[in-house]
Every structure is written in C-alpha cells, then in structure tokens.
C-alpha cells in the first residue's frame, strides 16, 4: 500500500505497524515528492536520501521482529537548518555557517524524534539566523507558500511550515523567538506549537536570542502535533534553560474535551490593526469554544518593544565577531538590523528585561481565572514575495514584514505556550489560510492541545495538503 502526501503521522505509524506498508516505502515516497516539488517550493536546503533510507530500514527490521519501533515509527520529518544533524553542516540560513564543519551529533530535539522512530529526510530553509518573518533568504532563495507560489511562506521557520503544508513531510521542527513557528504555521495553514520556554531542549540549536528562543513542531493534525510534542518535552541538562520538571504527556488527555476550560478572547491590542479576515477567524474559533468573555492585557505595545530590543541585543551579541570581521557575508536583509542591535545601550536592554518580568506578572493575573486565551496569529494572510516595505492596515501604515509579529511577540516575550491553529475559507482572504493563537499559562500545553483537538473535531480548523496555485 502506498502512503500519500496527505497521510498523517499516526496513520503512517499504524500502516507500518500493521504491515500494510513499510517505512522504506513511506520514506521513499516522501523523497520522491521532495524531488518532484521542492525545486519550485524551495523548502529544503539539504535532502538526506541514503541516510533516511537506512534509518527506514532499521525501523522495518524492528517491526519485522515484532519489536516496538516507537510512537513515530517510520514517520518522515525534516528540521529547520539551525538544528544540528550529525554529519551535516548547520547553516542557520547563513553563508558564514556554511563554512563550518559538519555537526558531530544531533540536536536534542532531532535525537528525541529519531528515538521515537521518526526518520529524518532533510534540513529546511529559514531567514538568516532566524531574524525575519518571511524566509526571503538572499543566500538560499525564498521559500514559496504552497497555497500561492507568489507569496511568502512566513518565517523564520518558513521551510518547516511549507514542507508540511505541501505534503512533503507530515512533521517538521522549527524555532520561535518572536513568532517564527506561529507566523509561518498561520500563513501556510498548518498547526504549529511553541511550547513553554524551557519545556523542550534547545541543545544543539543555533540560538538567535537565547532568553527568547523556543523549539517546537509543525503538523497537519492536532494528534500528530501532540505525539511529536510528547516525544520532545522533558528536562535536559545540556540546555541550561531547560526546565527541571518531568514530561507531562498530552496524548492521554487529548480527547477529554473542554468543559472544564475557561476560554476568553483577547481584546484591545489583539483586535486592532488587523484585516477583517484575521478577526473573523478569531470569532469563528471563539464561537466553537464557547468563549463569550473578553480579556484585556495591558501595555502590550510596550511588551512588543521590549521583545524587539531583547532580540536585537542578544542576536547581535551572538554574531558580533562576524559583524566585525565579515559583515559583507551577512544577508542584506539582516546585516544592518544586527549592527543596530549591537549599538543598543545596556541600560535599555536591562530595562527591557525588567519590563518583561513586570509584564509576565500582568499576564499571570489574567490567567488566574482564564485557562485559554484566543488571539489572531498574524494580522493578514501571506504577503507577496518582495512585497513593499510598508502596507496599510485599518487605515494605518505598518511595516509589512515586521507587523506580521504584532500578535505573536507579546506571548513569546514571556514564554507562554501557544498553539497556532489553521483556518481557511475566510471572506477577504481568498484561498489563503490564516491562523489563530490559543495561549495558556506556562506548562499547560495539554489545555491548548485539547482545545485544538475540539476545534479540529468540529471541522472549524483543518490543515489539508495545499492545493498549489500560481
């Protein structure tokens, strides 16, 4: 039996475990899809054909002898190219890192998925050093949105979202500092999970802004997202910020429903400067989850400013030596932003950290009597590749690319877990999908996945393989 592009990860595992197909067959057909379609989509910067087939054969041998090959047995996956993969140079979207030697070992998250039986088939395109919301990478070319090839996939984990949306793989990994999982998930119409800060190890990941960096999965179904998250979560001494707290599996409670969850819609900042389609998506999700209450979180614009300062300062610091020695080798889309970050006074950076602590406390107050908050993921669907610098939203001129993070930055600033759920068929968005964020208190990913599962069961959100246009 052949497994199609639309097969979910758990359907693949079931087909392999019941011998209706083999891991080799599944991985071979994923590699064929990548070969056939990625020349146009440009999701992959490296495809691991032989290694992937060898890994698939290992899964098949375990299944053949009656063993347990893991909860993701034979599932093809791919990772943003800032995750270390043993034997592969970690590009982090840059030309500079292309000169580095191959990684000695897998990043912790890559190793975790491989231990769960998943088969790594390649590495995915991104904005240079994760500094962007568009994946219009000058060195490696733009990743194209599978729903409309003339549009961006979002970023910085654009390859990760587009590869899943196009049905090249059912599962991928990305990173999120200001929205880099959630923005591309929304623009490509797939599910994306940014876990709580410190819930998933970042060991072996090229950091962008260490005090804001998270890693997490993309998938086309909630259950796939939850299986991947359960394989990824847990303590890791190799990542100094990884929480010393045992894993809390989400799969056992996934179908418990939401009757015990108090759900509210974020008002104020989160209901402004967005196209009507983005706000309509929120209303549709709110209705399905029975959320009639609105909550207002104060001073969100200040939080966004603090996130930008922390990101720019920490990001510039990581790359300061290269900025001094070889600035010409940076992507023109990041170079001057990194250099500006290097010049931010220490007092401003430290005040941003103080503001973050204060803002986290304000959010905790809101979550005292709410379990899940709903907000748009992006203010508009995917802009065209090479879009003008500014655009008009709600009568106000905004920076086209930067404004994509207007609703995501405040939550990553304070490390709260967020699932972006995909929604399509919205008036004004044409064939393009949008995303809605479900946000919970720290370490309450299970609540988010239960709410997302309810929305999926009711047909409110879905991530079908994209019908490519353009």
């Amino acid at each position: 039996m052949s497994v199609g592009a639309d097969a979910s990860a758990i359907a693949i595992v079931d087909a392999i475990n019941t011998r209706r197909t083999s891991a080799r067959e599944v991985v071979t057909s994923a590699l064929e899809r990548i070969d056939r379609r990625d020349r146009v989509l440009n999701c992959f910067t490296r495809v691991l054909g032989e290694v992937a087939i060898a890994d698939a054969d290992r899964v098949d041998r375990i299944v053949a002898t009656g063993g347990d090959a893991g909860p993701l047995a034979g599932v093809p996956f791919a990772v943003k190219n800032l995750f270390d993969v043993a034997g592969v140079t970690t590009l982090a979207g840059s030309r500079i890192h292309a000169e580095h030697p191959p990684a000695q070992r897998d990043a912790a998250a890559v190793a975790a998925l491989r231990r769960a039986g998943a088969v790594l088939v390649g590495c995915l395109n991104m904005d240079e050093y994760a500094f962007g919301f568009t994946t219009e990478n000058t060195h490696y070319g733009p990743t194209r949105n599978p729903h409309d090839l003339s549009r961006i996939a979002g970023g910085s984990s654009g390859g990760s979202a587009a590869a899943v949306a196009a049905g090249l793989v059912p599962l991928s990994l990305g990173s999120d500092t200001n929205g880099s999982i959630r923005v591309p998930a929304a623009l490509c119409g797939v599910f994306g999970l940014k876990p709580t800060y410190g819930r998933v190890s970042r060991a072996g990941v090229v950091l962008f802004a260490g005090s804001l960096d998270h890693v997490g999965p993309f998938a086309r179904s909630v259950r796939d997202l939850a299986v991947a998250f359960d394989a990824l979560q847990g303590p890791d001494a190799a990542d100094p910020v990884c929480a010393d707290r045992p894993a809390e599996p989400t799969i056992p409670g996934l179908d418990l429903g939401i009757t015990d969850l108090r759900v509210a819609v974020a008002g104020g900042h989160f209901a402004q400067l967005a196209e009507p389609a983005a706000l309509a998506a929120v209303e549709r999700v709110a209705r399905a989850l029975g959320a009639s209450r609105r909550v207002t979180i104060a001073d969100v614009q200040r939080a966004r400013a603090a996130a930008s300062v922390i990101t720019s300062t920490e990001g510039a610091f990581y790359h300061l030596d290269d900025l001094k020695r070889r600035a010409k080798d940076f992507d023109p889309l990041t170079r001057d932003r990194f250099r500006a970050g290097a010049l931010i006074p220490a007092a401003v950076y430290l005040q941003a950290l103080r503001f973050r602590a204060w803002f986290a406390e304000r959010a905790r107050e809101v979550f005292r009597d709410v379990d899940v908050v709903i907000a748009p993921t992006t203010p508009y669907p995917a802009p065209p590749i090479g879009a003008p610098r500014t655009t008009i939203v709600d009568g106000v001129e905004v920076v086209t690319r930067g404004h994509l993070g207007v609703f995501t930055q405040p939550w990553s600033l304070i490390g709260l877990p967020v699932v972006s759920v995909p929604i399509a068929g919205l008036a004004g968005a044409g064939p393009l999908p949008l995303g809605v964020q479900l946000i919970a208190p720290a370490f309450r990913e299970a609540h988010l996945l239960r709410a997302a599962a309810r929305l999926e069961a009711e047909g409110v959100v879905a991530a079908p393989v994209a019908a490519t246009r353009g």
Partner: protein
Amino acid sequence: MESTLTEADVERLAALLGLPLEPGSAAAVAAQLAGLMTSARLFTEFPLPDDVEPAPVFRP
C-alpha cells in the same frame, strides 16, 4: 517623539565597540537604531516598581 540619530552618532558608537562600518552604511544602521530607540521609549519611560528584577536569578 522619534529618536534622532545622525550617521556621525552611529559611527562613534560603532567605533566604541570596535565595529567597522563600511562607507555609506551608517545611514541604514542609524535608521534601524533610531526605530529601536523610538519604540524602546514605550518601556524606558514607563515607571516600574523598584523591586522588579531585570532577569532571572543566576544560579551558580
């Protein structure tokens, strides 16, 4: 109020850090830095209680 930064300001700051800027690049860096400093006023001019710590506790 927007932050105003000249190319000369940026060149002096960069020199302090030992960050070379090739000819003609200071204007673009100044524009980026001015944007960050303007938005930073949203929190630098916002009064916070004295007991708010800037970062998590360092644990040796």
